[in-house]
């Protein structure tokens, strides 16, 4: 009878320990906090330290310098002129501008394309909804890599799209070759479900009788959308845009396999400096820090309008 007794005692000890609030707090907060500090805060702090360090013979020397940031922004070689003003840009500046431009286009496309579908989903009956949500979730859960790869087959000089055009008697379309258009389509397709699910979550909570009331009182369709539906689903719109925009800015796989070197987004540049041909941990870190800072700025902006609880959708 020794074993159960010991079991009882250790159990009693656990219960006694857990009944003190401070201990419970420690047990629940502790592990997650340790993980976040060790695997999120420390690496990001380390990376920001590396971005200020000197690199000698591929070794990090802890000698603070701003050289890597300076290199990112100074000594541009590509010349542009905007009216009378001429300026030059560095590869980094171009990559970051391109990334933000592509991410903006993908976000707007996702928003415009997903909103009607999310609206329809919110108004479906239970049976139909179950079928549609299954059709939506399946691509959502399917490997990102598979979805990106699926567009490798669709686009390209001899891709499915051009083959189909050929069968129909049209010529090949140059825009369907790997490059900007496939990257935008690939990103839109990849993050579409995130936007859809987030929009649906906020549309689902919408009181549709409000809209009917507004219509009955003489509001036009446009006014109803502008004055009621959009303001009421703002958390979903902002949250969904965040879930599309941020990962799109840092995208690597999609521009890599659909852009074939023609679309140099920031993710490719960072990968290139981190493990690729032009390895330099300090440059990779500095470039990452610039992106982190801009993402944090975006988050601050967003959380002025929505709280995390309202984001809901994963």
């Amino acid at each position: 009878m020794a074993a159960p007794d010991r079991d009882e005692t250790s159990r009693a000890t656990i219960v006694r320990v857990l009944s003190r609030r401070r201990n419970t707090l420690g047990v629940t907060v502790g592990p997650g906090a340790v993980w976040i500090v060790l695997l999120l805060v420390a690496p990001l702090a380390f990376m920001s330290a590396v971005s200020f360090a000197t690199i000698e013979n591929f070794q990090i020397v802890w000698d603070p310098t701003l050289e890597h940031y300076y290199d990112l922004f100074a000594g541009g070689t590509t010349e542009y002129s905007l009216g009378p003003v001429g300026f030059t840009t560095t590869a980094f500046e171009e990559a970051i501008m391109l990334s933000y431009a592509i991410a903006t286009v993908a976000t707007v496309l996702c928003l415009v394309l997903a909103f009607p579908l999310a609206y329809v989903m919110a108004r479906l009956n239970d049976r139909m909804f179950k079928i549609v949500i299954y059709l939506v979730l399946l691509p959502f859960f399917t490997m990102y890599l598979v979805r990106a790869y699926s567009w490798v087959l669709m686009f390209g000089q001899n891709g499915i799209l051009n083959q189909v055009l050929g069968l129909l008697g049209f010529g090949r379309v140059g825009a369907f070759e790997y490059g900007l258009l496939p990257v935008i389509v690939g990103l839109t397709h990849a993050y579409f479900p995130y936007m859809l699910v987030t929009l649906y979550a906020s549309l689902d909570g919408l009181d549709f009788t409000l809209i009917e009331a507004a219509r009955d009182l003489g509001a036009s369709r446009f006014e109803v959308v502008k004055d009621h539906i959009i303001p009421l689903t703002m958390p979903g719109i902002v949250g969904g845009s965040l879930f599309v925009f941020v990962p799109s800015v840092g995208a690597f796989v999609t521009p890599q396999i659909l852009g074939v070197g023609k679309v140099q987004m920031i993710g490719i540049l960072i990968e290139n400096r981190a493990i690729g041909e032009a390895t330099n941990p300090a440059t990779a870190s500095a470039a990452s820090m610039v992106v982190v800072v801009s993402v944090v700025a975006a988050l601050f902006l967003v959380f002025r309008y929505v709280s995390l609880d309202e984001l809901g959708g994963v």
Partner: protein
Amino acid sequence: MATETSEAAGEEFDDRFFDRGRVESLLQGGLYGFAVLMLLFLWLPLLVIIVLSFVESPSVVSPGGVTLSNYGGLAGDTDLHSSVVTSFSIATLSAVIATVFGVLASFALTRYRFEFREIYRTFGIIPMIVPGVILGVGLRFYFQSVPGVDPSFLATVLTHSLYGLPFVLLIVTARLYTFDESLEEAARDLGADPLTTFRDVTLPVIAPAVGAGFLFAWVRSFEDFIRALFVSGISATPLTQWMYGKITKASVDNLLTLNAVSTLVVLGIAVALAVAMNVGNVTGYVAGTVDDDEE
């Protein structure tokens, strides 16, 4: 749906309302048509992969004959097998860690008021939002400087356990917010100690959310490519790294093999999702609309 009834009533009284009804139904048709188009947009490339996994040449013009040989070749591919085992191991280990830590943290966030609570919550969500390239690069440099970790299997498990944490946190906190704490008080009043209360009262109620959180963390790890690219090193090759190798060395054989593997992935997810949707309220967790009726 009430819109239609009110219009139907309107038609009887006034022609003006009849016109409005026609415009309405036309718009409605357009809306539904657009929705169907969007579903097609989501599905078209996946369907193309599935169709092109059963042909002899990856082309719609000259696909050759229908064949199962693309699948036959997979059986003997030992690299593929070991990468699948690696991915399953990484996903399972990291999802377990993420679930345990995530559930504990969810209790802290919903039950207690403590200093830095808001910061804790924000940092708990950040791993999900940080672009994968940056999390991967940051952790790679970090692990390289920590003796004994290095980019490896262990490093990948650690990385994915951090990446999975927010998914568990979001789903389980959402459930705990709607949890009726008087149930626990009742159990305590009737003499149950905290452990018994947790096991017999709390856990059964939050179990579906915990399961959904685990599933999410698992899938996110299994499908992750970019973080693993930086932290898996040369010693561990998850499935996504194996697939990426085939994509970058695109030959007809590689494409056909990829189509077959991708089809199996889609099929596996389709079955798992169908089961999960019938067992629990997956849609509720995904769309954040968990209601109380499943208690």
